[in-house]
């Protein structure tokens, strides 16, 4: 198995506060990790550290065997779609083309057009090239941002707090789409919404300054309590497959 992401002893200190402390994480090909944690737990900081947006205090991050900062094209980043101004006059085609602006990613115009078509098809938005970003629904905007991340053929896809809106038109659930992409790409999905994450990911980690995870997708009471630092009640709903640990004690 190829190591796609390798984080060793990562610490980040912002303005005198330890935001991340001794985080270790290794992901192989085609893994799919959900990271959950309360607000302010350092989830966004972890993503920013991988993307080279903030300085790390110690440790290292390697993506596909190379230092992450030297391999930015290998990382596809999907920010929250509420981060940008939805009234900006820009077409879907032009938004996706922005993903090509990376230094070592030079394509000719016809190549780029083909690539835009290809990634739009992957996110079930074929034919949306000329639509304006302001005309899209929230779910469609999110898919456009995924398409933009895919255009550099990344080996690792990072999603920051995706909102899974019911997107009936395209017929496919947002998480099913990620599941399909996961057949080729390693995915990290960050969310504060345990329910949204846990159904589809292969592994779950809890983050609150430290990262706690083991090789399964079961969240244990201990993990949650360590993360949220308060007693947590696990309530499992009637899901088709069980995610939360079976608890055999009386309420």
């Amino acid at each position, binding site marked *: 198995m190829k190591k796609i992401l390798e984080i060793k002893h990562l610490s980040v200190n912002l303005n005198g506060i330890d935001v991340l402390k001794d985080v270790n994480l290794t992901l192989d090909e085609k893994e799919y990790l959900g990271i959950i944690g309360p607000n302010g737990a350092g989830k966004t900081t972890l993503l920013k550290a991988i993307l080279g*947006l903030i300085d790390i205090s110690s440790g290292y991050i390697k993506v596909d065997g190379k230092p992450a900062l030297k391999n930015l094209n290998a990382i596809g980043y999907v920010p929250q779609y509420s*981060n940008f*101004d939805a009234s900006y006059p*820009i077409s879907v085609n*032009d938004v996706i083309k922005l993903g090509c602006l990376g230094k070592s990613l030079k394509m000719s115009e016809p190549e780029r057009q083909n690539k835009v078509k290809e990634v739009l098809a992957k996110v079930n938005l074929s034919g949306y090239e000329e639509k304006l970003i302001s005309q899209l629904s929230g779910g469609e905007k999110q898919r456009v941002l995924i398409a933009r991340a895919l255009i550099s053929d990344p080996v690792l896809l990072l999603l920051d707090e995706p909102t899974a809106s019911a997107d009936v038109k395209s017929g496919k659930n947002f998480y099913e789409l990620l599941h399909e992409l996961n057949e080729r790409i390693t995915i990290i999905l960050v969310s504060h919404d345990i329910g949204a994450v846990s159904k589809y990911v292969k592994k779950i980690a809890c983050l609150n300054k430290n990262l706690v995870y083991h090789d399964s997708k079961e969240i244990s009471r201990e993990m949650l309590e360590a993360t949220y630092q308060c007693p947590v009640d696990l309530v499992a709903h009637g899901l088709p497959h069980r995610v939360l640990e079976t608890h055999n004690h009386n309420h």
Partner: protein
Amino acid sequence: MLEIFQYDFFLNAFLAALLASFACGIVGTFVVVRKVVFISGGIAHTAYGGIGLGYLMGINPLIGAFAFSTAAAYFISAMRRKNSSNEDTLIGILWAVGMALGIVFISLTPGYTPNLMSYLFGDILTVPFDDILIMIAADIIIAAVVFFNLDKFIAITFDEEYSRTLGLPVDRLYFLLYVLIALTTVILIKLVGIILVIALLTIPPTISIKFTKSIKSMMLFSILLGILFSFLGLLLSYYLNLASGASIILVGAAGYILSVILTGNKN
């Protein structure tokens, strides 16, 4: 009505209006989509210090204006980089200090200072040919910089954080964009004056954004609107004997109200 074109000063005025509309349409588009009107105001008003210094030292005040505006652009970019929490206040101070310096320099200048009011409120009918040459040079620089960096400017104004993940030099690009605002200020001073620069920079793109689907078409439409407003404003000022800068801005404001009524009906 064509008789007014027989006057040289009027030809210069129309040429200046064309050149200014070009810069405004291109740079104003980014100012409006990125919502940096206050920053632009800071850069533009600091120029007054340079005009005062120009008078004091006996050089072309427009050159002094450009130097001061560029310095303001540099300070504001440095503040952005440090992510300082009181950026807003600091820009306000910069704005006032620039203007105060202008007043001090001018009071230190011996003798009578002609045309001073023209820098504050614009007097397009007195544009000397030297200034037209400066405007042409500034337009060429703006066109070239935007032509070669259009995708990058779109990236940083649309989604700044994502641009950083692509490895784009976001801070340097913002500084470049602010210098373009400084250049546009220099072009606009003669047309509408420092006080009214922001209006001409923002009114045409604010109307255009309602009707256009891309940054390029927004720029083009803004340029055309700028030309229309300044021509109508000039004619109005000529026939009604009004201040040219104020007439241009009021025509622009009327255009904006008209566009609100039009799009309001559409929706």
